[in-house]
């Protein structure tokens, strides 16, 4: 089985791609973005796919109930956000309030990160990143929330893309056992390469 840190890096790549797509859409505008129908489905489709792929992560990588609930809730809300955005992209959903699903996803994910991390900030790098990811998602939820009220807000779109890049960066920085700012609890295990 691949190590947990590798799975984090794979999802980091997914978030990096989401960030690139969000920035590109912001740069060119909705009119150009929608010129090729397949392009409308790229970002929400990738979100939905990442939600689906979180289910095997939940099945094979969780070693406690709270971990399982956290990963399961991520899978569910990411699929919900991806599904809502897919519905909006296809025109089957029309209300802008469906965009609140993305804000809900970020709030649920942020809370899950903070609740399921049982260690303090400087226990190890993974613990630190869990805390930072949780707060990044919670604070970053303001951007999709703003987009639900002001769909054309460029500042909110830029903020949302920035949050995606930040999540990618944090997930790429994850290691199973590594120090953070020179701190590593003796209970965290032996660091490797």
């Amino acid at each position, binding site marked *: 089985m*691949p190590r947990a840190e590798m799975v984090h*890096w794979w999802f980091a*790549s997914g978030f*990096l*791609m989401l960030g*690139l797509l969000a*920035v*590109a859409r912001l740069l060119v505008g909705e009119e150009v973005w929608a010129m090729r129908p397949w*392009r409308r489905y790229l970002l929400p489709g990738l979100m939905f796919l990442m939600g689906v792929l979180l289910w095997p992560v939940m099945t094979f990588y969780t070693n406690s109930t709270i971990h399982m609930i956290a990963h399961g809730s991520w899978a569910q809300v990411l699929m919900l956000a991806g599904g809502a955005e897919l519905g909006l992209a296809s025109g089957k959903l029309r209300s802008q309030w469906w965009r609140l699903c993305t804000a809900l996803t970020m709030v649920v994910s942020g809370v899950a990160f903070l609740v399921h991390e049982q260690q303090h900030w400087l226990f190890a790098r993974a613990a630190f990143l869990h805390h930072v990811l949780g707060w990044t998602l919670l604070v970053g939820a303001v951007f999709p929330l703003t987009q639900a009220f002001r769909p054309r807000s460029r500042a909110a779109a830029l903020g949302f893309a920035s949050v995606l890049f930040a999540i990618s960066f944090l997930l*790429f920085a994850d290691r199973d056992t590594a120090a953070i700012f020179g701190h590593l609890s003796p209970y965290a295990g032996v660091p490797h390469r």
Partner: protein
Amino acid sequence: MSAEFAHARHERTIERSLRARAVLALGPATMLGGVLWAVVQPYRITLLHPFGQGFWWLVGGESPLYVVLAGLVFWRVVAIPLAEDMDAL
């Protein structure tokens, strides 16, 4: 075509061109980021010292290469068609 209208259209074309260039630059910039990461932390690329490494470390442990790959895929699949569409407008 009046001079005023032509001027406004010319400005819109320049703005579109700048945006197209910015979109086209995103992919190479991401790839460059991955390469710089590999230079700063070469131990993150297991392929550079593959002896004694298991399958998953050789396939799944190449995080800077994932950044390069994401930039490459984005550039080829998304950015180039987007720039073409902007030029076509």
